[in-house]
């Protein structure tokens, strides 16, 4: 919608959800994406973080008042306030991350992710690794709170582990999540590191070899639970090996959801006047979600794993392997 804006005056903006811009998750990544785009354009982005989960409208209003040209918002609760703001400000381009909005507006772009596809690979890799290091292999996952953006990871992981078991006729256990009953282990928030640590310890007691905490920065608690033990972690959202050097020695791999890339791309498009309202679905095919490299574990995972993962990835892309997640049902 904004085509007249020249590069120097274009003002990209971002709204964060209550978790804050340092959540090691979608807020942080969307800010990074917008800031990266701003740097490219040669400007600085404005950011506003909601103080509570009901005042999204004022957050938008304050950015509108700053004369932002594009606004990126991440978090499912933003949906309707964003639509309302977009309706009132047709000249501003809006990017809605992790949610699909109705009705379709010309200046709103939805960004969603088939996270379960990457998580499937993550689950498979975890199972393979666990199987290679233990006679009683087990993979554990737990969440911060039971949000679909969280459980979609857990679904994918569970399917991946199950796929490994059927393919290899093994019985790698999955702890912490039951796809069928959609019930599992949760911290109850995204801040209680001590509790996260105790839950991870509990999984270690149950013999977990790989732990996948889907809980923002709470993987730090899990890292401490492992201590000098042999178990490893899988990161989520970002490639945690790169984003948090303090834990990289235990990061087997990460299930990456490229919110940053999506935010950056959409912002750049808006700046260059090429913004469109088509929904972006990040998946394995377009690289919107991915399994990060094994980095230091490259040599410790079974040598055939990489090629197996490539095959599975191809299978998922061509549809021969399906990943089910109730949480993904709205992703057209």
């Amino acid at each position, binding site marked *: 919608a904004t085509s007249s804006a020249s590069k120097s005056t274009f003002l990209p903006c971002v709204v964060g959800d209550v978790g804050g811009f340092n959540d090691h998750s979608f807020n942080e990544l969307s800010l990074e994406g917008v800031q990266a785009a701003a740097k490219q354009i040669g400007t600085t982005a404005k950011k506003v973080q909601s103080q509570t989960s009901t005042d999204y409208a*004022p957050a938008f209003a304050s950015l509108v008042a*700053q004369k932002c040209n594009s606004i990126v918002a991440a978090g499912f609760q933003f949906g309707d306030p964003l639509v309302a703001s977009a309706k009132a400000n047709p000249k501003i381009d809006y990017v809605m991350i992790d949610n699909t909005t109705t009705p379709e507006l010309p200046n709103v772009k939805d960004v969603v992710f088939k996270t379960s596809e990457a998580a499937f690979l993550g689950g498979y890799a975890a199972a393979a690794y666990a199987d290679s290091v233990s006679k009683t292999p087990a993979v554990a996952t737990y969440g911060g709170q039971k949000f679909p953006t969280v459980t979609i990871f857990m679904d994918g992981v569970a399917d991946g582990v199950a796929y490994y078991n059927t393919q290899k006729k093994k019985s790698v256990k999955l702890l912490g999540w039951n796809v069928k009953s959609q019930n599992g282990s949760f911290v109850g928030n995204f801040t209680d590191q001590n509790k996260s640590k105790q839950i991870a310890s509990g999984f270690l007691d149950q013999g977990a070899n790989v732990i996948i905490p889907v809980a923002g920065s709470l993987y730090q608690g899990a890292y401490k639970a492992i201590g000098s033990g042999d178990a490893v972690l899988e990161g989520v959202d970002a490639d945690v090996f790169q984003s948090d050097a303090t834990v990289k020695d235990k990061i087997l791999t990460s299930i990456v959801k490229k919110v940053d890339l999506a935010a950056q791309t959409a912002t750049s498009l808006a700046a260059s006047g090429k913004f469109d309202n088509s929904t972006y679905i990040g998946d394995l095919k377009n690289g919107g979600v991915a399994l990060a490299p094994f980095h230091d574990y490259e040599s410790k995972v079974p040598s055939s794993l990489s090629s197996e993962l490539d095959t599975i990835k191809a299978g998922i892309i061509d549809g021969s392997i399906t990943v089910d997640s109730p949480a993904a049902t709205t992703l057209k």
Partner: protein
Amino acid sequence: MSPAGGVPVGETGMAGAGLDPESIPPEERARLPKPPERGPIGSTLIAIRDGNALTTILAVVIALVVGAILIAATNPTVQSTAGYFFARPTDMLSAIWACVSGSYLALFQGGVYDFSQANPLVALQSLGHSIGFATPLIAAGLGIAVAFRSGVFNIGGQGQVLMGAAFAGYVGFTWDGPPIITLIVAVLFGLLGGGLLAGLVGVLKARTGANEVIVTIMLNYVVYYLLDFALQTPLLQDPKSVNPISPPENANAIFFNVLPAEYHVNIGFVLAIAATFACSWLLSRSSIGFKMRAVGENARAARVAGIEVDRVFTAAMVISGVLVGFAGVYQVLGTTTTGFTSGVDAGIGFNAITVALLGRSRPWGVFWAGILFGVFQAGGYTMQAAQNVDINAVQVVQSVIVLFIAAPPLVRWIFRLPQPKGVVA
């Protein structure tokens, strides 16, 4: 703000862990209003006469200075110019001036009056936003204050807001009834929700002696997780969403605007004003209010005088819960009408404690304290957006202001002001 009206009083049931007549320092005592309680105008006049308005203004001044230090210290321009301060001090000083004045202007523009707008009516929309934030805080603050005055310490605001929101929200999205009636029914259900939860606490306290501080803290968590659960079941979840969010409210259940839509001032605010009048009447003129205050001040004497203390506790909790529940109602029918989540309480339950205490548990004190908080919240967003001030810094400035407002003796000491007139000791 009108701190003219004494201080919150009464055994808090935290076994004396609260606010007792004894806790009133002599100089406060001397300023205790003589009953009858006055309306807003009267107490403002008294406040000015007694010099309270002055200490309040000075408190805000100190807090703003503290906030300015915080804002300046974390401003990137200030930091970079500090590197060569001795070479060219003016750079840093002007950077400080720029960020501090800019931030506070933004706060004012976002919270009270946006003078960058030519049209004064448009400029006043900021105040409308603040009122939107203030409304639930006033209602919940009144609830906490009523409990306080009766000697019960209600920390269960969060749970009661959630209950109010869930009950009202449920009616609002399931029943597409006629205008007004739907709204009334939804509101009443919400009040019922808050009242039920708080009433449970009251009954537990009356029957088993269970300390209300523990029970309310625990119930906050219980209600939160139960609501989160319900939001994942067909009971409350929007069938169109996979997310734990409720369906949007039906149009007839939504608080209608009383000013042009841009002002975001709806009937909820009118109801909050009405609630303030009602509480004022309740506490100073009604029989039940009289009993509540008697129990709050001296439960033993109240019992000897034939007042059924346990019943009064329970009644106070229920009234408190109803008022706090209204904050929840406002959240779903006034603020986020497009579907609520388990975060719908928006921290109101806890902020309301501060609002109540800041307003010294007097209804009109609570009202103005709520407005002040509303201004901060609305202005806080503009501060963030315009000056890139961290939301947490805004929170710190708010807290500092509250502390200073609550401590007139400290402010007087800082400014070497004399004791107000007519004070003993």
